[in-house]
């Protein structure tokens, strides 16, 4: 039983991180129908910025929760800035271009950002301080670690905040409008450019949160971490139904658990095969993803 629990919580952690990143993918896709391949790199930049901020602040004497939160905020600000700039440079000029052009631009940006960090910092793995402190009440709990709990709680909080934002604020309404029909929203006076920018900013900030948390949990970062996390998170977003926020979270969790249990009960060698196999399987029966809305096409 304990084995199962440990795998369950391990999968939950993974799933939470995938969810945080997947939210960014799904939001951007919902608004401009673009697979933002460079999103994984935004996550990586968030992690690096957090490391730099945390180290600088630690030298200035900070520690504990305030260090984590402050470093996290700095990371969020910077990731949001990168996301914003990314959109302006690589995607905005391509809004009227054929479908695949922004995709290639995204791939190019992904390569660019990876190498940018590689050259500006280092190719080595950098050690990331464990910013999340161990909770005293979790001393005797062996199946779950403090950092896992923090990650899960943060994901839940972030998703809730995001959902509230989308449902109850003006900007949220504008985002939903643009996602539904961009031209119509524009005709009704919505500032589409601003909505798109806000989408990127929020998505990037969430990815940064994920980056900070998981790096604290694992203890290392490297310029390449965005790549794999990005592909997995994108898979999660599609699995849950791309364009749907609860779908992204659900997709993330399902993916995380699949991988965790596949490793635990079958073999670690094939965990990715299981993950992708699951994706194919689900899409065969629900082509729009688990929570995806099957939109009927007007002929």
């Amino acid at each position, binding site marked *: 039983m304990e084995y199962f629990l*440990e795998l369950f919580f391990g999968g939950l952690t993974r799933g939470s991180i995938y969810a945080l990143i997947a939210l960014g993918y799904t939001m951007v896709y919902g608004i401009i129908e673009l697979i933002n391949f460079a999103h994984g790199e935004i996550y990586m930049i968030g992690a690096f910025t957090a490391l730099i901020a945390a180290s600088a602040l630690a030298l200035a004497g900070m520690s504990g929760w305030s260090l984590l939160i402050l470093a996290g905020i700095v990371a969020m600000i910077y990731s949001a800035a990168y996301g914003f700039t990314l959109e302006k440079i690589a995607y905005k000029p391509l809004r009227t271009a054929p479908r695949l052009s922004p995709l290639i631009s995204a791939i190019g940006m992904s390569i660019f950002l990876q190498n940018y960090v590689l050259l500006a910092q280092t*190719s080595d793995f950098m050690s990331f301080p464990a910013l999340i402190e161990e909770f005293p009440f979790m001393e005797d709990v062996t199946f779950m670690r403090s950092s896992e709990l923090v990650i899960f709680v943060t994901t839940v909080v972030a998703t809730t905040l995001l959902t509230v934002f989308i449902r109850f604020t003006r900007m949220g309404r504008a985002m939903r409008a643009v996602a539904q029909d961009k031209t119509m929203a524009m005709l009704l006076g919505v500032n589409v450019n601003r909505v798109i920018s806000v989408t990127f900013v929020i998505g990037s900030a969430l990815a940064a949160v994920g980056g900070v948390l998981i790096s604290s949990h694992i*203890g*290392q970062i490297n310029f390449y971490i965005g790549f794999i996390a990005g592909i997995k998170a994108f898979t999660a977003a599609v699995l849950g139904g791309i364009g749907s926020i609860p779908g992204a979270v659900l997709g993330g969790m399902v993916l995380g658990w699949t991988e965790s249990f596949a490793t*635990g009960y079958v073999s670690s060698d094939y965990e990715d095969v299981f993950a992708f196999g699951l994706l194919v399987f689900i899409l065969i029966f629900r082509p729009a993803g688990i929570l995806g809305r099957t939109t009927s096409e007007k002929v």
Partner: protein
Amino acid sequence: MKRFHIVFITCVCMLCAGPALAADTIKLGVAGAHSGDLASYGLPTLNAAKLVVGDMNAKGGVLGRKVEILAEDDVCKPEVAANVGSKLVSEKATVVLGHICSGATKAALSTYNEARLVTMSPSATNVDLTKSGEYPNFFRTISPDDAQALLEVNYALNTLKVKKVAVIHDKGDYGKGLAEFARDFLEKRGIKPVLFEGITPGAVDYSAIVQKIKFSGADAVIYGGYHPEAAKIVMGMRKKKMKTLFISDDGVKDDTFIKVAGKYAEGVYATGPIDTSKSPMAVAAIEQHKKAYGAEPGAFYLNAYAAAICLLQGIEKAGSTDYAAVSKALRTNWFDTPLGKISFDERGDAKGIGFAMYRVKNGKYVEVGK
């Protein structure tokens, strides 16, 4: 900043001065992954080469000629490596330091073999590269997979007296090769590993495999792979209060491992070349890197440093750049390197790189056995 300047000026100089220097210089080809996800394993070699060449040129060069570095990126991919091989041959490299990954090395070796270029790798550990006899031009300053695996298994069974062993690898060339040898040696001693699995490097979380190790009841884990994943697994294990012993290879016997894993690195075993920490040359080489690049050197740095020294001094001792002469010089002379006094046997493996078992005690690797 300084490095930016150096690279920029070097590039400009290489572009301008290339043709002019061509006739007179000794060309050291340095091939490996200089970009992409495996760049952290290839760049330290390039740094080592630059430092060694810098020193040699300051002392008058080799055979009175300056040494020039031809750095080529193969991103650890076989077909790119094959092209790199072609390129280095057509640019008339004298000798080649590389490649980094066994797969890439294999792909390029037939080109170097045909062109009769002495090739020395600091990190390609695939056994066939030397044992198959197909590549008489190949040398290496690292022990092949089987030697390390044997040491690990013997130490685990004889000294640590463990009964149940889990064998984990990182699905890479190096890690999996080593793990497979470890498994074979264990089975020869009548012990079947309780686990034999590969993890995906760069994954977001490793708690599942740590769980599995815990529930397999293994007394020790033999891990084939590099320090980043090793650190993650060890940390995962210790945070779950597992007392399982962790034994690994020289991809992990790296000070970076200790620094990254911090206090969790205590008690970890890893095999590595003998004497490196005490050797004054090794200490000096590491200091040199810190001064030039402002950071600790990365993977295979000392191996590459040694290889560069052997290659260049081999040419010096041979008195010419002729293939047969250099090969012979490498096999009949002993060279002072950060890894100790080494030479090479008929198959190209290094002699004198003994391997020893180390253990992390109080934040440092300490030799505990042979």
